C-alpha cells in the first residue's frame, strides 16, 4: 500500500486536466459567465490573467464540458506557423486535408463555402505566443462570424495592449482570472486532496499553515501546486529514511520552508 504522502504528492502534479478542476465560488461564477458568453453571438472571447491563475484549466474544463454539445476545438499548444495553423483548423473543423500551402484567403474561402450551421468554437491557449500578424488574421477570421474564438492571454501591460489593438473594435467579452484568496486557497487545497481520498493530509492544512503557504505563493495556483508537490515529496522522503512516524496533525513550518527553498519561492 502506497503512503498517504506519496498519494498526496501526486495530487499536486502540475498537469492540466479538466477532471482536476476544483470548484470555488468565485471561479465557478466566472466559469458560468464564460459558458454563457459562448452561447452569445460574440466573435471572440478573451480570457486573461497572470500566469498560474488557471486559464488553461478553464479552457480545458470548458472543452470538456462542451465537447459533447458543441463543435469545439482546443489548441493548448500554439501553432505558430501560419500555414500550419490554417491547415490544422481546416482539417479539424472542415475535415479537409491540405498538402500545399494554405493562406488566409484560401482558408476564408473554405470557411465561407463550408459554413456550418453550428458555429465552431476554437479555444486557443497561450495566445500571447502567436505573432501579431497571425493574431490580426485570427481577428479577421472571427469577423466572418463563421468561427468563434476563445483565447487566453497572460496579463501583462504589453499583452493588454495587444488585446486592445487587435480587439478594441470587435464585439468581444473579457474575463479576468486572479489568484486565490486565503480562504479560497484553503478550500482549493483541501478539496483537491479530498477528491483524491487523501483525507488525512487534507486535515493537516490548518488556517495557519494555509496562511504560510499563501504568504509564499500569493495564492497562485501553479506555485501552490509546485510547493505542495515538493512538500509531500519531502514528507515521503522523510518517511522512507526515518524510523519514527511523522505527525499527521499539522505541517511544521520547517517542511514548508524547505519546500519553498527547493521550488525557488524562498531564495536561500
Amino acid at each position, binding site marked *: 500500500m502506497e503512503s498517504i504522502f506519496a498519494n498526496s504528492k501526486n495530487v499536486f502534479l502540475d498537469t492540466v486536466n479538466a477532471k482536476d478542476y476544483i470548484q470555488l465560488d468565485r471561479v465557478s461564477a466566472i466559469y458560468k459567465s464564460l459558458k454563457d458568453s459562448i452561447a452569445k453571438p460574440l466573435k471572440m472571447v478573451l480570457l486573461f490573467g497572470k500566469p498560474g491563475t488557471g486559464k488553461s484549466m478553464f479552457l480545458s474544463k470548458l472543452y470538456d464540458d462542451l465537447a459533447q454539445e458543441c463543435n469545439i476545438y482546443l489548441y493548448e499548444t500554439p501553432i505558430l506557423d501560419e500555414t500550419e495553423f490554417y491547415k490544422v483548423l481546416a482539417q479539424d473543423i472542415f475535415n479537409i486535408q491540405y498538402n500545399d500551402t494554405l493562406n488566409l484567403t484560401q482558408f476564408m474561402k473554405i470557411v465561407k463555402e463550408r459554413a456550418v450551421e453550428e458555429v465552431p468554437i476554437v479555444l486557443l491557449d497561450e495566445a500571447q505566443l502567436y505573432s501579431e500578424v497571425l493574431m490580426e488574421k485570427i481577428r479577421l477570421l472571427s469577423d466572418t462570424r463563421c468561427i468563434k474564438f476563445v483565447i487566453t492571454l497572460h496579463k501583462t501591460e504589453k499583452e493588454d495592449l495587444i488585446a486592445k489593438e487587435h480587439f478594441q473594435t470587435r464585439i468581444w467579452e473579457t474575463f479576468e482570472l486572479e489568484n486565490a484568496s486565503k480562504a479560497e486557497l484553503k478550500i482549493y487545497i483541501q478539496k483537491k486532496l479530498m477528491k483524491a481520498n487523501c483525507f488525512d493530509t487534507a486535515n493537516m492544512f490548518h488556517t495557519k499553515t494555509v496562511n504560510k503557504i499563501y504568504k509564499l505563493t500569493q495564492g497562485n495556483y501553479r506555485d501552490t501546486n509546485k510547493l505542495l508537490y515538493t512538500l509531500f515529496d*519531502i514528507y515521503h522522503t522523510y518517511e522512507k529514511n526515518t524510523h519514527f512516524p511523522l505527525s499527521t496533525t499539522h505541517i511544521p513550518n520547517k517542511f514548508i520552508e*524547505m519546500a519553498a527553498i527547493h521550488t525557488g519561492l524562498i531564495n*536561500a
Partner: protein
Amino acid sequence: MLNIHDLEKRWRRYKIKSFLPYVIVSIVLFAIVPAVYYFYTTNTKAVPQKKPTAAKKTVPKPMLPPKNKPAAVKAKPAAIQPEPMAVQPKPIAVQPKPVTVQPKTVVIKKTKETSFQTLKPSMNFMKNIQHEVRQPQCRYKKTKQKQFKERKVTEAVQDISVESPAIKKEKKINITIQRKETQNDIYEIIKRFKKSRNPALSLFVAKKYYELGNYKQAYNYALITNQINSNIEASWIVFAKSLMQLHQKNKAIHTLQEYIKVSHSSNAEILLNEIKSGKFK
C-alpha cells in the same frame, strides 16, 4: 528524489539569515540600553558637579563690583570730560593720567570676562581724529605727552573706555543715513509704481511705510495693492496691521475675517488671533 540533507542545510542557512536581523537588533539594543543608562547616570552626576562650578563662577561676579562696568564707564567719561577741556590747557590733561592708571587694571579684568566689548579698531580711528583736531595746537608744545600717549597705546586699555561714547555717536549717524536711503528708495519705487501700477511695488511701499511707522501711508498703499490684486496675502496683513496701528481694531478684525473667508489664509488667521487675544503689538 530529493536531497534532503542538502535541503536541510539550505534551510538552516535560511533560518540563520532570517533570524540574523533580529539578533543584530537585539544585540544593538542590549548594547545601547546600558550605554544610554551609563551616559544618563554620568550626566546626572556631572550636572551637580557643574552647578558648583557655575556657583564658583558666579562667586567672583559679586567680586566685580567693578563689574559695574557702566559705572566705570561713566566714571571714565567723567575723567574724559576734563580731557576735551584739557585740549587747550596741557597741565589739565596731565592730571587724568594718574586717574586712568587705576581704571586700566579694572578694564583688563573686563576684557578677560567679556572680550566682545573691547572694540579696539574703531577706537583708534577716533583717537586719530581727536589727535588731528588737537595737533594743530599741541604739536610743538607737548612732546612729553606724546611719549606718554604712545606708552598708553601699548596698554590699549584706557582708550576703550574713552572711545565708547564716540562709538555711540557713530551709530546714530549711520541710522540717519539708512533712513534717508529707505525714503529715497520709497520715492523711487512710488515713481515706478505710478508708471507700472505693479502691485508688488505698492506692497513694497506699504511694507516700508509700515516699518518706518508711517501707518497712514502703509494703510493707503496696502489698500491700493488690494484694489489692484485682492489675492495678495501680505498686502491684507499689512492693511490690517496698519489699521491696528491707527487704532481701528474692529475694522482690522472685520477685514481679516472677510479675507480669511475667501482665502483661508493661515497667516491671516494667526494675525486675527493675535489681535483678538490682545497679543498684537
